[in-house]
């Protein structure tokens, strides 16, 4: 129970890494605002049963990350809830694989809108809560593509590199106010995004990993748990690769 009594906001929780983070955080006693882009009865039901299973509160919240007005409305709702916000996990993101010269301006801008601008804005809003209470942990899900550069990932990788750079500046500004900010850079992880990779590429990549296997969303969630918990109280401004030894 590393997060007993803490409240977390997690974006992009319908599936994949975000869903695993909800599960891991709930199992460790956190109350959670679980964000998804759009409302669905299944999602709400799944969140309710997870909350019952772990004896925590999970509030589903719905808004499009690129819709500033809805995001603002969510933040207003938070203010009236009057809870301390201890953890923010920015997980929601989009990817389009395309060779550099084939990348359209539309997908380039979309990836930056979702992966960078909306994350920037949400942190602006939520960090105010954290600064006021003089504690908090911000966790941004970046990508090894943001550090390494991979074929077909010029737009996605650039948007994640921007997230990493932003995180370092946030850490530098908010450290003395008691707020930590770190990135996780997942490598090849078993999610829907993985299905966008051609199978030949996937097989080749797997064999080049030190651990010779793709990562699980729950393994990314374990690192998010660490960064959210007091186990990491002296860690800020870092990017932790959870990549099975990706070369």
């Amino acid at each position: 129970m590393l997060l007993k009594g803490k409240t977390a906001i997690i974006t992009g929780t319908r599936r994949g890494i975000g869903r695993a983070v909800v599960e891991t955080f709930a199992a460790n006693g956190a109350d959670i605002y679980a964000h998804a882009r759009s409302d669905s009865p299944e999602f709400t039901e799944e969140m309710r049963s997870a909350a019952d299973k772990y004896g925590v509160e999970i509030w589903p919240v719905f808004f499009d990350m690129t819709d500033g007005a809805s995001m603002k409305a969510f933040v207003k709702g938070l203010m009236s809830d009057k809870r301390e916000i201890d953890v923010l996990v920015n997980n929601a993101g989009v990817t389009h694989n395309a060779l550099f010269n084939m990348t359209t301006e539309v997908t380039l801008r979309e990836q930056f809108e979702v992966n960078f601008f909306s994350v920037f804005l949400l942190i602006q809003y939520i960090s105010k809560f954290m600064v006021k209470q003089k504690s908090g942990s911000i966790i941004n899900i970046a990508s090894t593509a943001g550090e390494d550069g991979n074929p077909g990932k010029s737009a996605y990788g650039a948007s994640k590199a921007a997230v990493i750079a932003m995180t370092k500046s946030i850490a530098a500004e908010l450290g003395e106010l008691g707020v930590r900010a770190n990135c996780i850079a997942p490598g090849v992880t078993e999610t829907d995004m993985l299905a966008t990779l051609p199978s030949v590429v996937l097989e080749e990549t797997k064999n080049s990993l030190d651990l010779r296997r793709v990562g699980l969303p729950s393994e990314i969630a374990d690192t998010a748990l660490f960064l959210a918990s007091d186990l990491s109280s002296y860690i800020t401004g870092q990017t932790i690769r959870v990549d099975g030894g990706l070369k």
Partner: protein
Amino acid sequence: MLLLKGKTAVVTGCLRGIGRAALETFAKNGADVFACCQREDERFAEYVLELSGNCGVSITPVYFDLLDEDAVKEGAKFIQKSKKSIDILVNVAGANFDALFHMVTMEQMKRTFAVNLFSQILFAQYITRLMLKGGGSGSVINISSISALDGNPGQLSYASSKAALIAATKTMSSELAPKDIRVNALAPGVIKTAMTDTLPEDIRSRMISKSELKRIGLPGEVAGAILYLELTAALDRRGGFRTCC
């Protein structure tokens, strides 16, 4: 919650500082520990007895000096004779001889590398063979330093030896990870230990003011990162990260 119940760990540098904090964290989380120290110490033996009693785990002190290769081998063999399968190795023990680049002697360089690199590798060779023989998975954590990444005035031999340890970690990982032994390095920043207590006050306060959290780290906070590395499976090789900035 006992996060390491049923696991056996080998930790070096347990007499004080980060090694002591790692020993405590492991014991409190249910792991049996071979607690390695440079020399026999009665108060340490008493402390270990009390800790193992309180936590209901077995803690075996092992004494060897990392400057003495034969003693390192003896220590490893002593652990081998216990016939316990080893899950975790944490190499914390290290030495620091501060000297400016133009002043550092070859003798200081060799001693630093003997302790911070050669003996770490020698000891890890023995212990990871035990892990492989046990057939199970294992994890090795080498404690490096942010001075290995950033450099630091007066720390030529220390920073170089710790940088070499990071390179060794990456190579060990690429060889051992396919056999299910994960190898990672941690790079602590300014942590309150005997090593930083000897730093001149102006240098220490300058280092702290450069840190974003504007405070010195505690050994227990590094132990928290060590515990985390034990709990996560996909993190590997370049998972080495800093505990301060």
